[in-house]
């Protein structure tokens, strides 16, 4: 009985929407934009984290990352700028590196110190180029592929530099730049190696190595007036099984050396893959705002249209009641109509969202992810909207007095 009524309500909603095409389409548009924005956010963020997850699993999953400050939860990350982390002094120190490297089962430790400084040779590198000071161990952890030359090792001079392919092109005009010199922060460095193009600006090191100049930790420290400023410490254990115990030991050691202040975080696995790209945060922030606004506006649109529809059909409500419709029958009729609008809009939004997401990723280095979870989220949001904003009009319809409705003249 309920099922038949349900089918009938759907047919009815379809007819009604067909009857006022433009109105329904415009109402749907609000939901479409909202759901599309959400689809964009979710598919892109899933795409971005998948890259990092893939990187880590390709490194057999036995690496951990230590970052200064306490890891914020991902939702706050989405909606708040990360001002604190960008400008405060790092809480990680050189002595921490020593503690960590003495931890059992830890094979390699590589600190990352990102420096500011203009990179210059034939031409000046664009401002998005990065200078990073690190130790040779980074090669063992991140498993760099060299295009030519070698990575830093214990024997190279302090003025050695390894550059990314894009940086090489930017400052020298071509990809082969072994032996040539460039200046960073006014100091001369000789290129000893060029990294193979990686094309993944999003990674667990938060550094686009295609655009980076890698110098030794000592040189970096000297350039920074003998002050270390460690953004991240990469750690590799001898096996995945020993990683957990090693992390525990690191935490204890660091906590002791930091006087019990929990001002660092040790991240493994999925924790590292929380996307850190600034671009991603920008896209996510804007689309979240659009989504929230358009979902509310879209919802108000639905409610408005449903109230108009109820008013237009007052007489119909009276007739239906006289012919045996109960209050809940009437209520369901309008609720399902509002759901039809919101779910219809949601489906278009889901499709449109992917069109936009694929459009955006033409300019990015990763693809949006298509999975069932995003479809379910889009559907749930649509159903929630239709119910939330359709409830009041449908209750109003059901409460109409049959006699007043029947004798209303329109």
């Amino acid at each position: 009985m309920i099922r038949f009524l349900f089918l009938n309500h759907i047919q009815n909603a379809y007819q009604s929407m067909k009857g006022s095409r433009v109105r329904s389409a415009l109402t749907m548009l609000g939901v479409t934009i909202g759901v599309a924005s959400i689809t964009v956010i979710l598919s892109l963020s899933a795409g971005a984290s998948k890259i990092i997850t893939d990187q880590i699993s390709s490194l057999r999953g036995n690496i951990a990352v230590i970052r200064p400050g306490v890891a914020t939860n991902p939702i706050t990350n989405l909606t708040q700028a990360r001002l604190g982390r960008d400008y405060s002094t790092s809480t990680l120190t050189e002595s921490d590196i020593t503690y960590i490297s003495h931890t059992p089962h830890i094979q390699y430790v590589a600190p990352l110190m990102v420096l500011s400084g203009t990179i210059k040779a034939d031409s000046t590198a664009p401002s998005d180029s990065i200078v990073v000071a690190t130790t040779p161990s980074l090669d063992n952890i991140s498993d760099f592929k060299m295009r030519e030359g070698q990575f830093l090792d214990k024997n190279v001079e302090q003025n050695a530099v390894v550059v990314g392919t894009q940086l090489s092109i930017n400052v020298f005009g071509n990809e082969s730049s072994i032996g040539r010199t460039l200046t960073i922060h006014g100091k001369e460095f000789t290129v000893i190696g060029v990294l193979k193009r990686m094309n993944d600006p999003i990674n667990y090191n938060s550094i686009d190595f295609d655009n980076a100049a890698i110098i030794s930790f000592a040189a970096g420290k000297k350039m920074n007036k003998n002050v270390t400023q460690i953004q991240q410490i990469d750690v590799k254990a001898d096996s995945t099984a020993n990683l957990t115990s090693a992390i525990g030991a690191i935490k204890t050691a660091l906590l002791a050396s930091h006087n019990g202040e929990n001002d660092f975080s040790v991240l493994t696995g999925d924790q590292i893959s929380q996307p850190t790209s600034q671009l991603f945060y920008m896209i996510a922030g804007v689309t979240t705002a659009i989504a929230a606004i358009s979902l509310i506006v879209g919802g108000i649109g639905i409610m408005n249209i449903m109230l108009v529809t109820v008013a237009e059909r007052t007489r119909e409500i009276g007739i239906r009641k006289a012919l045996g419709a109960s209050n809940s029958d009437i209520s369901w009729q309008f609720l399902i109509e509002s759901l039809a609008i919101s779910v219809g809009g949601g489906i278009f939004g889901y499709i449109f969202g992917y069109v936009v997401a694929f459009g955006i990723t033409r300019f990015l280095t990763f693809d949006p992810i298509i999975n069932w979870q995003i479809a379910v989220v889009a559907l749930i949001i649509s159903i929630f909207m239709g119910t939330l904003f359709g409830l009041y009009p449908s209750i109003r319809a059901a409460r109409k007095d049959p006699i007043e409705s029947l004798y209303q003249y329109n």
Partner: protein
Amino acid sequence: MTMAADSSTPVIRLRGLEKRFGIGDAENIAINGINLTIDKGEFVAIMGPSGCGKTTLLNIIGLLDRSIEGEYELDGQSVATISKRKQARIRSKQIGFVFQNFNLIPRLNVIENVALPLIYKGITRTKRLKIASDILRNFHLNEREYYMPHQLSGGQTQRVAIARALVNDPSIILADEPTGNLDSRASHIIMEELSDLHKRGNTIIMVTHNPRLTTYASRVITMLDGQIDTDTGSFKFKGQSITLQPIRRHKRSSRQLKRNKK
């Protein structure tokens, strides 16, 4: 329904029925103490001037108007004790409405309009359309099934409205001026149809302005100022109520009616 089968229980029993609209100074008494018993199988015509409460009475009988004073028993059960949902079910299964102004739903076509009451009985779409199609054939409207209401003539529209009232096979048919503005030929066709239903044992209560139509009824009630003015009473022959030409009182009321119209 079991009670309805028992011929000794009246289908409709009203005791001291009152209905007021508005409150305080604006209060208006539409029905002012009506006692009325209608048995199964009666064809009752209710007459009276405009504003005497005929339509209100019909709405109350049809369970559309709940805020009443006094007693209303339908099939021996007090209406006040029946839940809203149950009342909707009674409207769906037992009562057929024919409205004065047709009241077809303009955005649905003829067959969908006729099939409308079946929705609330929980009948599947294919079955609904089949039943509706069958009944439309009885009314010689089978060629108009997919017309929209505005494409029909007045007579056709009213026939569709009657077909819709009958599609549920209701035991009580409430008709509010079923021949409304129709010419005498179209009125005749509709009255023949109602008369036919009456002969098959249905209870019919019809409000009308037209005294000629009362010839089809087995009982004529005239109303004045929210009260029953005259009542011919029910005439039964061999257990079945028969059509009877009303007596003088009716003629007076018809004259009164004409006076009122002027």
